[in-house]
């Protein structure tokens, strides 16, 4: 496997004033109990949040709470080997699961003064800053597609979609944007 060089191609997303494609990155689905979470926090370099629906970042790495024992770990592609090696070493003998889902998802930023409104066109969550503050993240739906939603700033949402659903999600957002001429 080590000789196999894979090129990660993300679905093409056209940049707009309110939409910014995120370059390919390492995505790991991590699951484990309190002991595994503590070990992964040390080796990954980001304290995995134990509060529901919260994300934590350190440098270019982030850990998003997805479920009570489930996290989405994000890191630059160049950290691929070092992240895996460190995690595997620190988790030896501790029950856990790590699944590489780098290729499964594609990400983009929804940003600007209309970001909340645009997302509201297909997401049933209360997206007001008071109900969905900066640093909050969750898995949810946009129209009929599952998305990971993470508010990284008051007017910036990091959105992850399953890659084959990316055109569906983006097209619906583009459609919504025609209404507010964002």
């Amino acid at each position, binding site marked *: 496997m080590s000789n196999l060089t894979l090129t990660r191609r993300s679905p093409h997303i056209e940049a707009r004033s309110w939409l910014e494609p995120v370059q390919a990155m390492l995505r790991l689905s991590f699951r484990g109990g309190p002991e595994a979470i503590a070990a992964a926090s040390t080796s990954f370099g980001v304290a995995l949040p134990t509060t529901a629906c919260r994300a934590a970042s350190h440098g270019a790495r982030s850990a998003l709470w997805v479920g009570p024992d489930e996290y989405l770990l994000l890191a630059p592609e160049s950290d691929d080997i070092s992240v895996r090696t460190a995690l595997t070493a620190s988790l030896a003998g501790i029950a856990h699961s790590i699944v590489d889902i780098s290729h499964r998802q594609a990400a983009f930023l929804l940003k600007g003064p209309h970001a909340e409104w645009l997302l509201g066109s297909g997401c049933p969550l209360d997206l007001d800053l008071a109900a969905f503050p900066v640093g909050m993240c969750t898995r*949810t739906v946009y129209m009929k597609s599952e998305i990971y939603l993470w508010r990284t700033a008051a007017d910036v949402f990091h959105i992850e979609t399953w890659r084959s659903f990316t055109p569906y999600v983006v097209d619906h957002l583009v459609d919504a944007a025609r209404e507010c001429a964002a």
Partner: protein
Amino acid sequence: MLVIHCPYCGPRPEPEFAHGGQAHIARPQDPTTTTEDDLLQFLYLRENPRGLFRERWRHARGCGRFFNAIRDTTTDFFVTTYKVGERPELPGGAA
């Protein structure tokens, strides 16, 4: 929109949830002593009450976890939701 309280994530909109049927159905422990009637009960027979009902739900598009709820089948009102393994009692006695 109907808002359901996930025991892990808090109040969330109904489209994120999936209904999982009657709660607290236990699989017969010992196959060697399980009778046909036990299996019939376990596999097929379910309550269908008018009023309070203990149900399984799953936060399918959120944290993904199963949990239980007490819902009034006549009004769709969720009395409470709770984690698997718990069983809160109700004044008036739910099913």
